[in-house]
């Protein structure tokens, strides 16, 4: 079973898009629950995305890519 990791909703409307600013984990890397996976930013507001569960990360967007709020950025299996 895999868990989806989504770009957080950071604006009131929740339908803006932002940037996957920095990946801190490689594709296929093992992570612990709570570990920082990425920094994301919408305009000049940034936020951390942490792992909701432990497991193996599969990244689905590239660093510096524009991503819609709520879109899947990785799965953890």
């Amino acid at each position, binding site marked *: 079973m895999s868990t989806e990791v989504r770009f957080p909703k950071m604006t009131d409307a929740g339908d803006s898009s932002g*940037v996957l*600013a*920095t990946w*801190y*984990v490689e594709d296929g*890397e093992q992570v612990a629950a709570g*570990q*920082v996976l990425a*920094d*994301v*930013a919408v305009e*000049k507001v*940034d936020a951390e995305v942490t792992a909701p569960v432990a497991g193996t990360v599969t990244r689905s967007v590239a660093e510096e890519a524009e991503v819609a709020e709520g879109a899947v950025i990785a799965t953890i299996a």
Partner: protein
Amino acid sequence: MSVTAQNPAAAGAHAPSPVLPVEPEAGTRRLNTAKALQEAIGSQMEANPEVFVMGEDVGAYGGIFSSTTGLLDRFGPQRVIDTPISETAFIGLGIGAAVEGMRPIVELMFVDFFGVCMDQIYNHMAKIHYESGGNVRVPMVLMTATGGGYSDGAQHSQSLWGTFAHLPGMKVVVPSTPYDAKGLMTAAIQSDDPVVYMFHKGVMGLPWMAKNKRSIGAVPEQDYIVPIGKARVAREGTDVSIVTLSLSVHHSLDVAEKLEGEGISVEVLDLRSVVPLDREAIVATAAKTGRVIVVDEDYQSFGLSGEIAATLAENAASRGAAFSRVCVPDVPIPYARDLEYAVLPTPARIEAAVRAAVAG
């Protein structure tokens, strides 16, 4: 004030953190420099109740360059203290706390603001240990943001480590990597001497600023120190040595990688601190390659680059090494982007200096 209160080294029950190998093991968790810095401060606050943070916007805002993000939530407003815009008052407050045995980390938001509070810094923080005949120590960290490159103008873009290094009594620490940022901050907090900890905004890896890939790197989760005063050979080379620090390390490594393909072998020495200055490492790299280029984002005249030239001239092993420098010419940092990038030590200027050195 009791004798023990005057001497926190004797009173402290906190063992110093270990020195780890500089290269972390493969698979070590990665952080940007800002998170590495936060982790060092948070970990030392957990370990020692005498450690606290104070400054403008260090609390809810988390430091304007994210040096203190998350600390208010973890430690509360008595240990993560937002101050008014009154640098003389809160730096003086930090000095008072330090001489009473606490270990304050006081953030001066931009180093450029030192002008309004310099008496506290260089007449008190730096001199109390000396003027008390060695009886009173000041185990304080003055943390401050330096550097330009993002159009913030002449009063928010300076480096100024040479100014602080010129005045006796303060260690001056200038990290370039996440690994060093954590280890040097841990060392600074555990030091019984006043430490000026100068982080360049451009090495922090912040999402909203242009970031070099080298501002994200492996950082061990355990506590460790990077010894203050020990330079690091960031890259081995044989043709020319770049002696540098802070963001200019990243630029110099980028240039070295590019020129490797042309058969030009560049050694890069990351000083990591200006006081103490690792003169042995400077002499050693000069003796190895015979050519030294100092890359320094501080002003050119009367500063670090001249001090390095003097070091080379004073030591027989390095005397006669070819010498040049890539610094900020002696002008205020311009606001206009084209003008600012004309004075900064950019990769293009560094590359030109390397080519001139190996051609000469």
